[in-house]
């Protein structure tokens, strides 16, 4: 294994691919949390997205239906969360945890007959350019459309939150639902929408895993990525761009430490495996030091139950 320039290009390409599910799930959760809702069910929604995407692909043999279906399944399962927390006013934390446990269990049951079925190859874009341009080719080209979408998403999210009226409404609801309600904003509706959007993105993140990244169904294949995505949102202090940076660092060090293990570095394997978590936290803590900005970005009402006075 030589460290030539094209190898580094391929390495970066694979790092990008590995961070896609984190970016998608974290961007979705970011919107949910910005509206003041703490949904700890990210892992559960992702795994449901993964199995429904894969199952639909096997059944319909149509990748488009599979992708859309996985997002819909994310929406449906997050609707359960939305109904419980927004309409029945249950505790966000407990409900989110239950959602994750439920999702993992349900996906294992649904997925029983799909274990061992080979996946289908997902079409990639610009694959000819990938080969012809050294270094930049493997970085920029030959990826699935979902990856391009994922990398655009943090910027779109940032634009949505900062520049659009709806984004302003979402931030306002997350800041003070009581004030928003007194201003005539339908807080419950806004929060429902944000929860469902978060569900859709988590579903897509799951489908990316089972249809594109490792095209097959394995029980519990999200392997804690949902929790990482949740942590990313907090450590990135609810800033979409920092979520992207964090996801890339996490993906990058995960891939790098695998290579280091393969090369046979004389560092304990356990330490190497822990490295991505440590580094992501350290880097995000360092880039998010500005306490004033943290205060401005943190949704003040996060996780608090809101009910309207009658």
């Amino acid at each position, binding site marked *: 294994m030589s460290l030539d320039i094209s190898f580094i290009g391929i390495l970066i390409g694979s790092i990008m691919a590995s961070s896609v599910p984190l970016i998608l799930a974290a961007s979705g959760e970011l919107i949910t949390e910005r509206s003041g809702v703490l949904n700890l069910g990210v892992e559960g929604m992702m795994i449901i997205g993964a199995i429904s995407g894969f199952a639909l692909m096997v059944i319909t043999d149509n990748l488009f239906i599979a992708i859309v279906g996985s997002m819909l399944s994310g929406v449906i399962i997050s609707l359960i969360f939305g109904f419980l927390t927004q309409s029945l006013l249950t505790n966000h934390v407990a409900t989110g945890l239950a959602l994750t446990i439920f999702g993992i269990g349900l996906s294992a049951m649904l997925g029983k007959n799909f274990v061992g079925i080979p996946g289908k190859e997902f079409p990639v874009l610009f694959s000819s350019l990938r080969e012809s341009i050294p270094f930049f080719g493997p970085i920029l080209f030959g990826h699935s459309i979902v990856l391009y979408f994922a990398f655009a998403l943090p910027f779109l999210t940032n634009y949505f939150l900062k520049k659009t*009226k709806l984004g*302003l*409404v979402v*931030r*306002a609801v997350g*800041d*003070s639902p*009581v*004030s*928003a*309600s*007194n*201003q*005539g*904003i339908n807080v419950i509706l806004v929060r429902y929408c944000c929860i469902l959007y978060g569900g859709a993105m988590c579903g897509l993140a799951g489908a990316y895993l089972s249809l594109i990244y490792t095209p097959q169904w394995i029980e519990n294949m999200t392997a804690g990525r949902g929790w990482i995505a949740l942590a990313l949102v907090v450590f990135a202090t609810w800033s979409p761009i920092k979520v992207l940076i964090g996801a890339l660092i996490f993906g990058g060090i995960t891939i790098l430490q695998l290579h280091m293990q393969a090369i046979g570095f004389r560092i304990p394997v356990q330490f190497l495996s822990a490295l991505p978590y440590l580094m992501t936290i350290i880097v995000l803590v360092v880039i998010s030091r500005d306490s004033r900005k943290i*205060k*401005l*970005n*943190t949704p*003040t009402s996060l996780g608090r139950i809101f009910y309207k*006075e*009658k």
Partner: protein
Amino acid sequence: MATDLRISNISKIYPGCVANDNVSLQFKSGKIYALLGENGAGKSTLVKILSGVISPDNGEVFLNKKNLKLSSPLDAKKNKIGMVFQHFNLFETLSVFENLSIDATEDNKSLRVRINEILKKYNFSINLDVPVLNLSAGQKQKVEIIRCLLRSPKVLIMDEPTSVLTEQETEELFISLKKFCDEGILIIYITHKLKEVLSLCDEVAVMRKGKVVSVSQTQNEKVETLANKMVGQKLAKIKKKINISKNKDEIFKVKHLNFYSDDPFETNLVNLNFSVKKGECLGIAGISGNGQNELFQILSGEIITPDTSIIFRNKEIAKLNPKQRREYLMAFSPEDRISQAAVPELKIYENVALNNFKSSNFFEKGLVNERKIKEHSKKILSDFSVNTDNVELKSQFLSGGNLQKLILGRELITAPELLICYNPTWGLDVGAINYIHETLIKINDQEKSTILISTDTEELLKLSDRIAVIYKGKLSKIMPSEEVTPEKLGVLMGGGSID
């Protein structure tokens, strides 16, 4: 066009409480109306109904003879009823402009133009692009007012607007309100402060226990008559008999108190020296923000400053933390009852137990002795006539007055030699203020001392034996209170000199 607002037979019943009982009132534009009542009299419920936040069980609202259906805040907005709530309805982390644009129908450019016109017209100076959390309370209120003005309201309702304002901000507010009134906006001013009613309003309606008990012209009223209507009984006049005696021991002595902070929101204190005698009340006057916060925190031990000497009962305590100072029989009542003195989410008896004083037997071998704490809490509730006997009640459900009584009760039950309080009657109604004042006087009668830091000059003149004024972190000379007049205090509080 003249505006005519009529409320007809409004009732709202909460479980265990009639908030509004058949309330009927009539308002016409060109006048400022006061809605006066103690905390819990039903004023806030009524304005929440008018602004569409809650719906009445019964009754109707007419604006210019049109029957309004106010089932959401949007309805109130549509009908041009503007409302500035007591607790601001602003989004702290959003910028001023974002706060104003959130319910605007026009594009940002023309909105900015209109906001700037309003700023200019009423002489408001507010930076539109800073987050609201950086603004002072007075500025936040202006943002709320601008939000109403943007919708060219016919009716503007102000709910306890001055409870968070400094005196200067209050004056500015009154000037603006009079301008709005001249422009034909009908103004309803909700308050429990009698002086404001007399100086600002034309007509006053008094509410008590959910009912309107009187409607009258303010020119026919005096502070005493309004107070009696509001409380429903004759209030005893309190006046302390001053007990200055030169030969009494100094119990508390502060020397070379200096405080320097980099935080632009904190005030530096410059070489403060004072002492308190046994059984004396030392009043410290000043407009808020002149260093009272810092002074209170240093006296209570929340901030430890180097080189300061604080002698209390012949011991040096300048380096001790609040808990240790309490063990020497000091007690503290901070300004912010909700966030500094008590934990609102905890039950009454839990809050009582928070002052883990050594002499108490609340804790045994690290375990909480719940029975003893509850007995003790019950005693506080009855001794200090707190309006409940349920020690399991969460403290947040107590009104300001009752919470203050609870806190004072908690502090005083150890029989402290010195009580330091900061704005003890802030935001309270007349009845509660009277009670707190009586309690503070009683403390002095028992030969215990108090330091009263307050922004209320009337209170200071009533309770203090000697008074000093704090201005920009410096303390004036300490004067016997019989030599002090409100005018003198006013001059000193504004940074002037009286010699």
